[in-house]
């Protein structure tokens, strides 16, 4: 279990992490989300003692990382891809890590096999693609068969097959009782992988929730209705307690009623329906909504529609 308590980290004038507290439970994948520059990497670096916190504490199973006698056998970390010497082979990179922690050499081959790099183990890593670099990073994290795993953007640079592989790997590792913290800036990926979510923005905790709760709260559940009998149906829907907004093209955006109830109302008023589509803001939209105020770098104008789906503001 990872316990972060009141963690702060200041770089010069920038407060990268601001009084952040959360825990990562064993047996679960905890997604660590936030826009770029939210402080995810800084937090992970502080957990393994690479950065010295300005304030607060981080403990792993009750102890500070630096006091671990053989840290790689307890905590595995992938902090950035290709943090390896390009002239050194993957095998030798794992070898020096194994030697310092007294890890059996057999584990090197096992870790390489686990990530599918055994055929290129002796090649210098300068020949590696970004995806292969990620796999090597994951092999480093798994080398000591640790109970706690920290992975910073592990799917970055992986092909779709690799992404699915990481997803299954993380779930399997969690099912074995390990505590897993995995960062991402992609909500959709986390929704498929994680059990819990820690969302941060500008170094502060925004949400500490489960994926299930986040998904059920996401979106405002509007229903798009097209009908030639707009006026009559609007009247009927309002009587049933719905809020109806009419867009320029004549479509009705109905909130407060399920699609089935709207269909029933249409039947009762003999209104012809051309379209009846439940709308749900995507997870990405919900995530963006949540973190809107804490995005470090905004584009000039934030688009109000995504993939042609209008957002429903005002009634």
């Amino acid at each position: 279990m990872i316990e972060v308590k009141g963690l702060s980290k200041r770089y010069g004038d920038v407060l990268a992490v601001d009084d952040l507290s959360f825990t990562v439970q064993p047996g679960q994948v905890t997604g660590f989300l936030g826009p770029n520059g939210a402080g995810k990497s800084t937090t992970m670096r502080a957990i393994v003692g690479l950065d010295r916190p300005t304030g607060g504490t981080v403990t792993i199973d009750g102890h500070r990382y630096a006091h671990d006698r053989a840290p790689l056998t307890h905590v595995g970390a992938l902090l950035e891809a290709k943090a390896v010497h390009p002239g050194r082979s993957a095998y030798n990179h794992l070898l020096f890590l194994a030697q310092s922690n007294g890890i059996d050499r057999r584990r090197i081959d096992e870790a390489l096999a686990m990530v599918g790099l055994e055929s290129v183990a002796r090649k210098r890593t300068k020949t590696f693609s970004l995806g292969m670099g990620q796999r090597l990073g994951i092999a480093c994290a798994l080398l000591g068969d640790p109970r706690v795993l920290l992975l910073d953007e592990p799917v970055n640079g992986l092909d779709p097959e690799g992404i699915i592989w990481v997803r299954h790997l993380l779930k399997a590792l969690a099912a074995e009782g390990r505590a897993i913290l995995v960062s991402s800036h992609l909500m959709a990926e986390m929704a498929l992988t994680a059990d819990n979510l820690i969302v941060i923005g500008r170094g502060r905790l925004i949400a500490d929730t489960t994926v299930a709760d986040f998904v059920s709260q996401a979106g405002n559940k509007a229903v798009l209705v097209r009908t030639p009998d707009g006026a009559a149906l609007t009247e009927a829907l309002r009587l049933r307690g719905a809020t109806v907004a009419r867009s320029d093209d004549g479509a009705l955006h109905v909130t407060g009623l399920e699609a089935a109830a709207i269909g029933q109302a249409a039947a009762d008023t003999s209104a012809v329906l051309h379209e009846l589509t439940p709308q749900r803001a995507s997870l990405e939209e919900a995530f963006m909504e949540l973190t809107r105020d804490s995005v470090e770098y905004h584009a000039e104008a934030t688009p109000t529609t995504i993939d042609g789906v209008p957002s429903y503001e005002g009634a």
Partner: protein
Amino acid sequence: MSAAVTSASPAPTAPAGHVGLAVQLPRVLRSEWTKLRTVRSTMWTLLATLLVCIGLPVLISFAIVNQPRGDVGPDFDAAGFSLFGVFLGQLIVGALGVLVMSAEYSTGTIRATLTAAPQRVLVFVSKLLTFAVVIAIVSFVTTFVAFFLVQAVLNTHSLGVSLGQGTSLRMVIGGALYLTIVGLLGLGIGAILRHSAAGISTVLALLFVVPILANFLPHSWQEHIVKYLPGQAGQAIFQRHSDAVTLAPWTGLALFAAYTVLTLVVGAALLVRRDA
């Protein structure tokens, strides 16, 4: 051209409870030795040191013995002559020392190193010891081989000296010690600056540029300053005579070693204090 990736097995091995052993000096030493020997640049750099420090004086000694005898005065310093490659070799060794530290930062390896071994002083000491042993071996081989080869060539015209003659032994051992310490100075500078180009430039400036700049000082000042410069102090150990503008051989070497120790202590302290 990137190598192919075989498809990965999705299922991890069950937690077998790999215990591991405590991170202690012998293990970190092995780890650092692995790091040093598994990049080709180490071997190439050491090879270049040998080539320059041995090859140059040997080549030029051939030239000397093929000259009319009058070209070499009675004051000819045969032992010192066999060591002049050290002046160039120190650059290569100093650069390698910088790289041993700075390459960890430029490649990001330092993150892997320090997550595996969070006690940073232990990492620094292990890196220092590993590199010191390697560079000392190479330095001693270099100066002794250079001495014997050059004397062999010079002796074809009875110009050589033996190791037991005069100050030869002190100069040959001293040359090796000087080279070794230059390497460690480079390592200390690398730890402080964490940047390869900046570190190598600093070594270059310290050993080559600063003495040149000192030449522009008034003569009365030079006498009191130049001999205390790191390079000049250290080089006294492989000069035949000491005079007013040089320190005594072992005094000079001790001063140079003291500068280096100071640099290393600062480097270690910064490694402990700074974010990696």
